[in-house]
């Protein structure tokens, strides 16, 4: 599914929290249709990296080239708002809007941000809900859904914006074990449609199966990256070997 078109070119990204350097000069490129999985021990900076990609967290320095548009920490807020609308994000804790129905959760941003007509947003939402297998929950409120269902709605909500890239921040970590599968299935289906995805996860089997490239991070650095086969079967760096051994 990969082409050679680079969607995100991330250059020398670094992030400080106070004196603490959480990301150290990270550079990488993400091409259209690529599925990148980021793994690493907790505190390695992988979630921060993901949150810096859509500027939810403002990087201290470095820049991102998004399809020719250069973004940095000095980019104006309204420009970043437009950029974020093109980057979908799925969170560990789902973060559905509890005061809105499932349908309203999905149609809100397209109508508000993209100025899509209500009918069109409705049509798209219905289609997306069908894809994630939740058509019968259209008018339910988030609190009436299981964690797995909520996360599937959250994925549909992000997809409703027709993003160029989807970011998954430990999307299955807060789920009961028996609910992980249904969310991974939706993510797997999405990967097969050619969506560009950057996934932070602890699900190694899933990473091995769907990813085109695995990035191993530790202490704010990219230690090693390669195909799943290279990383999981023949890791070169000592830290990667140690991490994978502990699983």
């Amino acid at each position, binding site marked *: 599914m990969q082409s050679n078109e680079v969607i995100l070119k991330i250059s020398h990204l670094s992030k400080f929290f106070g004196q603490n350097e959480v990301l150290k000069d990270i550079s990488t490129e993400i091409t259209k249709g690529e599925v990148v999985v980021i793994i690493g021990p907790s505190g390695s900076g992988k979630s921060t990296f993901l949150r810096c990609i*859509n500027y*939810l967290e403002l990087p201290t320095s470095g820049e991102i080239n998004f399809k020719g548009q250069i973004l940095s920490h000095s980019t104006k*807020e*309204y420009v970043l*708002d*437009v950029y*974020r*609308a*093109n*980057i*979908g*994000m799925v*969170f560990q*804790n789902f*973060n*559905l*809007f*509890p*005061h*809105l*129905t499932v349908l309203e959760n999905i149609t*809100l*941003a397209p109508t*508000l*941000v*993209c100025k899509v007509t209500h009918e069109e947003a409705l049509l798209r939402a219905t289609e997306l809900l069908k894809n994630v297998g939740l058509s019968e929950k259209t008018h339910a*409120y988030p*609190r009436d859904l299981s964690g797995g269902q909520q996360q599937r709605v*959250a994925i549909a*909500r*992000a997809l409703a*914006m027709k993003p160029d890239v989807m970011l998954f921040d430990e999307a299955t970590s807060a789920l009961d074990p028996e609910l992980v599968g249904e969310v991974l299935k939706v993510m797997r289906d999405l990967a097969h449609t050619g969506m560009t995805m950057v996934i932070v996860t602890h699900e190694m089997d899933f990473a091995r199966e769907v990813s085109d490239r695995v990035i191993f991070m530790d202490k704010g650095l990219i230690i090693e990256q390669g195909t799943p086969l290279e990383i999981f079967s023949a890791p070169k760096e000592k830290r990667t070997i140690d991490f994978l051994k502990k699983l």
Partner: protein
Amino acid sequence: MGSELSFWAFSQTIIIPRLAEGIVVTLKLTLISGICGLILGMILALMRISKFKVLSWFSLLYITLFRGTPLLLQILFIYFALPTIFEAYNINMVLDSFSAGILALSLNSAAYLAEIYRAGILSIPKGQTEAARALGLSRHQTMYKIIIPQTYRRIIPPVVNELSALTKETSLVSVISLSELLYVTQRIGSKYLRVWEVYIWAALGYLIIVIALSIFASRLEKHLEQKGGA
């Protein structure tokens, strides 16, 4: 005159007709300054959490000032001192006791309501803001479409608390001779030299307003709950 009447006869002929007039003034004071306070309080709360430091500081100063001084003093200041300040600057403005009362009560309740709103806004989990911003919503859209609607149900109990306090505090305005509930009943009391009857009726008047308010609030809360609210 009137002193030989029984409690019921005195109440019926003398107190109740005048009481209605006092209750109307008290209700007007409560409603108008309550609504002004609710609106001004929201503005102050938004200023307080604004990223513009000047707005935030102004709001903090305002809230500190109005919560840190007695309401009675604020009423007296607005009614007696403000006109002399206007005069000194040749501003032609007259404040009757009703407007002065409304002004003082509105400004005062706004300070308390601002803190209630602010607490409500801050109680919404950070993930809600992040999810909204990640979808491309601007800071404003996030606040008005996602955060504030979620605060409604949470803040109803403290807001009602504040509004019932306001209802009772309207009685302080009697010091500037505004014929609200307490003032009216006191006047009857001193005219007919019957004290306990008039205070009982005044107490009943406030009770009825406050109870009506809390019944309305719990209905509203249930209604919002059924609608799904957070």
